[in-house]
């Protein structure tokens, strides 16, 4: 970096070193440098938007909600997979910010990863409630019963955004392209732990395979990368326990949640207290 640019960076300016790649033109990805003004509270996504609006409109990246909800803007920021909208530049503690496309995925263009493997694996584990009473599932007459305690068993894992950061961080996915990956394994556990679901055996047949749950070495990088605190590493360990319990037949067969009784059969509400004002 030139001395003049170094001076310019102190405090007021930032340097974004952004990966550029056009597959039809470039042999391999390269980094392009942009100097942008620093603003208090700005995120990496704000910086990229500034570049796109004011400097180079050909820069390509995914973004949508700007508030860590949609999971579109996953990138490798200074060597760590993070959501660009969720990463304030001040927290990075550097004037030079290097942004690349997420590892363990192909690159469509610039910072846009090809998330096809993530979604293919996600679909493969049947990420929905599997039931034997398919008629009720197709045309529901009531809700399936679920207590708050039963909800707690999987709630944390249902916060997954499908942003793909966990798979980008996973060292096993980096070495084994066929590994199911933390996202789909965590979601497999999320549905297996759901008391309304009856698809445990179908999912176990998939995850208990050569490239399944047993390849996880519990590096924990997925949990560190997850922006929503889903903790896929924990889900995978719980899934291992479930699979082993099924193999050894230690787990009793659970009845799937029944449908809730009609309102007339439910407990009557408490009587209205005397002091409550009644309508005339």
């Amino acid at each position: 970096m030139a001395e003049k640019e170094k001076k310019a960076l102190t405090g007021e300016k930032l340097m974004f070193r952004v990966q550029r790649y056009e597959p039809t033109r470039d042999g391999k990805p390269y980094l392009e440098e942009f100097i942008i003004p620093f603003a208090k509270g700005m995120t990496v996504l704000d910086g990229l938007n500034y570049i796109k609006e004011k400097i180079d409109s050909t820069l390509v990246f995914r973004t949508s909600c700007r508030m860590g909800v949609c999971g579109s803007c996953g990138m490798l920021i200074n060597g760590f997979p993070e959501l660009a909208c969720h990463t304030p530049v001040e927290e990075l503690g550097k004037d030079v910010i290097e942004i690349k496309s997420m590892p363990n995925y192909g690159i469509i263009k610039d910072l846009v990863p090809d998330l096809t493997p993530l979604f293919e694996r996600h679909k493969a584990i049947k990420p929905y409630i599997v039931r034997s009473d398919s008629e009720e599932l197709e045309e529901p007459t009531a809700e399936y019963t679920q207590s708050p305690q039963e909800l707690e068993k999987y709630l944390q894992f249902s916060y997954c955004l499908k942003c793909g950061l966990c798979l980008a961080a996973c060292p096993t996915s980096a070495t084994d392209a066929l590994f199911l990956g933390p996202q789909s394994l965590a979601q497999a556990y999320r549905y297996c732990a759901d008391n309304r679901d009856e698809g445990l055996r179908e999912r176990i047949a998939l995850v208990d395979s050569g490239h399944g749950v047993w390849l996880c070495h519990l590096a924990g990088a997925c949990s560190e990368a997850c922006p929503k605190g889903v903790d896929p590493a924990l889900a995978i360990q719980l899934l291992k326990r479930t699979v082993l319990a099924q193999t050894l037949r230690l787990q009793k067969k659970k009845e799937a949640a029944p449908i809730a009784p009609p309102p007339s059969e439910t407990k009557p509400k408490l009587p209205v207290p005397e002091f409550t004002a009644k309508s005339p």
Partner: protein
Amino acid sequence: MRQSYFRLLQLITGVAVFFLIAAHVSAERLEDFIGGFGVHIEEPTSWSSVMDRATSAGWASFYIILLAVAIYHALYGLRGVLMELPLPPVIARSLNQIMVGIGVAVFGCGTFIALNAYYS
């Protein structure tokens, strides 16, 4: 066969290897220690002592079991490591067969030696 069976066997053989190796090392190197358990072996590494153990049905069985357990545990672990390497597709596809082949060959060789010594 489901992967969890192999994995379970890996855990069981891991525990078994720990105790069997401990017994083997104790017999070979810690005479005073195993003497406390009432097992007395005079000069365990001498030729006559080794041959005494080799011709005993109990010791021969012990070594064959140790061999089987150690081979399974080692090769399953090695397979796990190799599966994560960018192997050529031909080797990756036939990795299981290669591992089984090596295991059977080593076990066959070791068992042949143990049985040969036992019947000598």
